[in-house]
């Protein structure tokens, strides 16, 4: 009796396994699969919706995984089960490009879509903060130069913003920022933390001598609770800032632009983040936004060229386009023409210049 039961059970499992083969047979993917940056997500979703509603293709499915997470999934290989496009709020790194090549993703088309500023925002109910990049570095790094002087590093002792810079308010440092999967994090540590660290002469010298050690100092953020990794959901950070006037959030300018009734941007090196300040380059923390496309999937997954055409059309990414309405800073004319031509030709990224 027991033997028969066991036999029956195994037969059942076998049948189940086989029937999944039936399911797999029917599911051939007919929609575009996009992953990647949470900063580019609001823009990509708007383009996707437009694309889906105005053409006969299905609306692309978009997941917000963070630039790093997205590139990891993207570079895992070519094939139906891998994403077609990944959004990134920073340029692809050499190590990621190598990983792509080694997994067979050899032809990638890089498309720059516009610019975005990284803002440090807090609730409207508090006073706007006037920070310098050096302040940001001292407030957030895990190890900082010894306040007493000398060329050594100590664990970050600063508790309040006033400790960092006497002109700043006396509230506890509480910063909600992106995790390592986020491109905003990478861009932030490069633009803000590195520049802040360079203000210390000996660290600037270290950078020339041993870039890796310098990066370890500048890029490592504190883990004692003053810096909280708040996940890939930037909308949630806006909500938390609204609830907690003492906190500061780090995210892309579009989230500030779309929520000016709740939050305000802090001054960085004397410049307040605004559309024009970022476009002109006055605001120091600005970075380009990209997405990357697998050339191998074009012509095989329905709709990809249409999506690319929609994204690179003037009515989307132009100065009067709907993406600018959402807070993206458009590229200058010459750059737009260049990238549109590259996309039309499907020019492959060969090396990171």
């Amino acid at each position: 009796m027991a033997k028969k039961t066991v036999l029956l059970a195994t037969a059942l499992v076998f049948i189940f396994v086989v029937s999944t083969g039936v399911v797999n047979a029917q599911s051939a993917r007919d929609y575009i699969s996009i992953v990647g940056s949470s900063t580019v997500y609001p823009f990509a979703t708007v383009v996707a919706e437009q694309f889906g509603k105005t053409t006969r293709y299905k609306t692309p499915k978009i997941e917000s995984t963070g630039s790093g997470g997205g590139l990891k999934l993207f570079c895992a290989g070519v094939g139906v089960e891998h994403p077609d496009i990944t959004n990134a709020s920073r340029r692809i790194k050499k190590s990621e490009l190598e990983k792509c090549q080694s997994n067979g993703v050899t032809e990638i088309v890089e498309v720059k879509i516009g610019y975005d500023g990284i803002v440090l925002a807090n609730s409207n109910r508090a006073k706007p903060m006037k920070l310098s990049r050096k302040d940001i570095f001292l407030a957030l790094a895990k190890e900082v130069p010894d306040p007493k002087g000398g060329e050594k590093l100590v664990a970050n002792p600063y508790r309040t913003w006033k400790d960092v810079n006497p002109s700043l308010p006396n509230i506890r440092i509480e910063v909600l920022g992106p995790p390592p999967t986020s491109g905003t994090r990478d861009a932030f540590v490069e633009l803000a933390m590195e520049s802040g660290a360079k203000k210390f002469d000996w660290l600037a010298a270290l950078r020339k001598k041993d870039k890796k050690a310098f990066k370890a100092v500048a890029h490592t953020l504190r883990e004692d609770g003053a810096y909280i990794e708040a996940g890939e959901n930037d909308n949630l950070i806006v909500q938390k800032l609204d609830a907690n006037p003492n906190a500061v959030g780090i995210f892309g300018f579009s989230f500030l632009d779309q929520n000016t009734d709740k939050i305000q941007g802090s001054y960085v090196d004397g410049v307040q983040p605004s559309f024009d300040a970022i476009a002109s380059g006055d605001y120091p923390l600005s970075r380009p936004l990209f997405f990357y496309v697998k050339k191998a999937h074009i012509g095989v997954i329905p709709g990809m060229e249409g999506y690319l055409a929609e994204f690179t059309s003037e009515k989307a990414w132009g100065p009067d386009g709907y993406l600018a309405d959402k807070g993206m800073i458009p590229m200058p004319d010459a750059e737009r023409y260049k990238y549109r031509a590259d996309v039309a030709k499907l020019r492959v990224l060969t090396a990171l210049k």
Partner: protein
Amino acid sequence: MNKADLIRAEEKKTPKRTIDVVRAGLAKRYRAEGRFKLYGLGAIIISLLCLAILFISIVGKGYPAFQQTFIQLEVFFDPAVLGQENLSSANFPGLVKKTLRNMFPDVKGRSDKRALYQLVSTGAAFQLREMILKDPGLVGKTVSVWVPADDDVDMLMKGHFDRKMSESGGRLNNKQLAWIDELSRQGKIEKRFNTIFFTSGDSREPELAGIGGAASGTVLTLVVTLILSFPIGVAAAVYLEEFASKNRWTDLIEVNVNNLAAVPSIVFGLLGLGVFLNFFGLPRSAPLVGGLVLTLMTLPIIIIASRAALQSVPPSIREGALGVGASKMQMVMHHVLPLALPGMLTGTIIGMARALGETAPLLMIGMVAFIVDIPTGFTDPSTVLPVQIYLWADSPERAFVERTSAAIIVLLAFLIIMNAAAIILRKKFERRW
């Protein structure tokens, strides 16, 4: 000896009567009794109060979402703007912008014009496109169309925004407020029943976002769950209750089933992720996988409820069947099962109601992407209503808070209906043996 000593001596001589001792403490005891009863009543009142606060706060936030502000536009379907070929990709946004400019001819300047265009939702262009595609004969004619207003305008009309907010703080500047007032004077702006909310899928724009996609996904997922869990659950319960010999194995199975009913739902999500997605390679975000995970979750509940229903059938019924010569299987199928069926159905409905409200396991299997199209098949990417609520809850726009609450109202309405059906069924078929 003084008087006090005399009294004390007196008391020592005659022992106190029990009844006096009891009477002395009686008032205190009655008071304690009253307090205790009050605590009990208070506890119930607190619970019901919390329930009331929950409902009132959510309904209060949500019911405005059932109305949406619409603006009336006199649209001239200008052949020059639309072009001749391929009407489907013509410049409908341009058409909308032109119509607005015609309505407010003295608006000049780029930023002012942009502010004007922002009064109307981006969905207006899609609406016009649908109209033209359905009836291309409209080209060249002027039609009066009611289009959805932008969500900021909607919030203002519903009274959520403080009109006195200055340009920098509010989402609408003074010029826009003036235009909106002008539109109200002309009777071109009004609130109507929000059918968009029920028919369309998710969207980045709050005024175009709806629960149609999520509701459809929920129905598909629950169908899969019901088809799989009801037969298997009932069959397993029948076997375990009637046919299995009472040995260590069946004891283990019973403990096992009871435990499964109490395992946190997120562990089932991990199972779905590890086994269904990774090992079997089923498509992500599909109602099929969601249904499978929910089946595994609902199965223990159905088994337990069915077993209780089977146990409640009295032995006399069974003996009666056996007495006229039925075999055990016949007895179960003909006599016991039909009588236990109402209880099984009740258990199934309750299990389905629980599955309807589950979010965590479905997050794990990927039903958390931005999906606009309404799913039609079991392998289309989709989301379910609770997950849609979770996704919208993160959006800070005021209009999304309203819609999230409205979606919760719809979900709660479904649950109340299902639970009421279960209770009615139970009451109707409850038999006193």
